[in-house]
């Protein structure tokens, strides 16, 4: 080889080395791996916190395990007008163990083609100062994309009926059946003037009725027999409105539809059992959706007490209106939703 070739090749190599040494400088700004993950975490946070999910009505959280496929998008917000206000029933379903699996979270909340790993947690602050942490996903590795959203959680209202003279009918003939009715007027409850964050909506939230002091309605006895709990509906827009009994599987116990507790003991809606202290009924939205109610319907929940052929033992009788005057709304609870993606 000649000196000429050596000189030429050296110049070439020197230039090549200079160019190669410039390349890492070119890539310097790109070394952060958090870029993409933060964006995905932000997007997931927005979907969870600002969106009620799809389908909206009937809400997605009403689907059971068999109909999980019908859920297209998981969102926790009460409605699209109320970002950051989450519905407790949606939250419960979202974090329910064994309901959603990894691929559901990926396809219905995180989206995207890449199977991201995730850790989603919600820390709820209770008024008594305690915290309740709900979490799903894998433990956090270093270097994940992250977003934190501050939220409020709407809990369902609970109608607590204590000792109340309005429902204590002592003048009634002792042979007549005692009927205690809890009446829900959907037209009043779903009044559009009321913001969705402060609404009692039996279509999305459970209806809670608790008679705490049943003993006060037992003037001379220790207990009385609750014969049945039945549901009746009326459509006031019809020409001759009247209550009709809703066909329902009253004698099968199904905790997905309702929970009836007599003195803390679970039973079906035809208990024919004696009760001494408390009666508590939780009517889940899954049951309400079977009743085919619209925004004008009136729903009656009738508790019938019957001790015949003996004289009636309870004096509980009358109609309790499940409305904004009688049922106190639970205050919104603050919470923090964190989404980590990697």
């Amino acid at each position: 080889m000649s000196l000429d070739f050596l000189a030429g090749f050296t110049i070439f190599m020197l230039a090549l080395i200079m160019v190669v040494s410039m390349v890492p400088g070119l890539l310097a700004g790109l070394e952060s791996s958090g870029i993409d993950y933060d964006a995905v975490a932000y997007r997931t946070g927005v979907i969870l916190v600002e969106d009620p999910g799809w389908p909206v009505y009937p809400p997605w959280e009403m689907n059971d395990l068999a109909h999980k496929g019908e859920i297209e998008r998981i969102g926790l917000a009460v409605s699209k007008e109320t970002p950051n206000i989450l519905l407790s029933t949606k939250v419960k379903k979202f974090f329910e163990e064994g309901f959603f699996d990894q691929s559901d979270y990926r396809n219905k909340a995180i989206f995207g083609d890449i199977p991201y790993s995730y850790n989603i947690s919600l820390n709820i602050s209770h008024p008594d100062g305690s915290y309740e942490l709900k979490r799903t996903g894998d433990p956090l590795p270093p270097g994940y994309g992250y977003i934190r959203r501050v939220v409020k959680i709407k809990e369902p209202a609970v109608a607590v009926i204590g000792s109340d003279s309005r429902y204590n009918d002592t003048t009634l003939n002792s042979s007549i059946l005692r009927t205690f009715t809890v009446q829900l007027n959907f037209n009043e409850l779903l009044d559009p003037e009321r913001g969705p964050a402060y609404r009692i909506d039996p279509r999305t939230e459970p209806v809670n009725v608790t008679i705490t002091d049943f003993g006060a309605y037992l003037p001379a006895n220790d207990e009385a027999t609750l014969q049945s709990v039945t549901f009746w509906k009326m459509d006031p827009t019809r020409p001759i409105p009247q209550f009709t009994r809703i066909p329902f599987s009253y004698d099968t116990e199904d905790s997905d539809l309702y929970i009836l507790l007599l003195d803390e003991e679970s039973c079906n809606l035809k208990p024919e059992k004696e009760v001494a202290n408390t009666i508590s009924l939780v009517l889940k939205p899954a049951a309400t959706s079977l009743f085919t109610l619209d925004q004008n319907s009136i729903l009656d929940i009738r508790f019938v007490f019957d001790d015949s052929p003996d004289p009636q033992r309870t004096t509980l009788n009358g109609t309790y209106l499940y409305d904004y005057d009688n049922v106190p709304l639970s205050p919104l609870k603050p919470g923090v939703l964190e989404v980590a993606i990697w």
Partner: protein
Amino acid sequence: MACMNEDGQWIVLMGLLTALGLFFLALIINQSALVGQTTAEGVLEFPKNDIRDLRSEIFDVYDSYGTLHAQGRLGDVEEDIIRISLERKNAVVHFGNDTPQDVSGRDLHPVTIHYNNGVTEYDEIVYY
């Protein structure tokens, strides 16, 4: 010159190849740089929270429309929002309402909202 030795041209070829490689690398880097930038910056740039806040404030004003109108203070509050928006948020805002209309059984005011902060312009007519 006719019998020029062309053995050395492979060195130029190598140089050209390196140059081409660099160009493609640069193209790819340019594309990937866009990803991180548009998501985080796009979120910052679009004043979602500002617009939401403004809307809820305007709805609050029209919630107390009756009292404000009776006191003759509606203009004051409107002026507050317009002036402070311009001064502190660099946003041109104006809004107003019209005679109530019947929308599916309810009397609702059509409320017009205009927002422009130089980057994002937002116009809305909402029945409230």
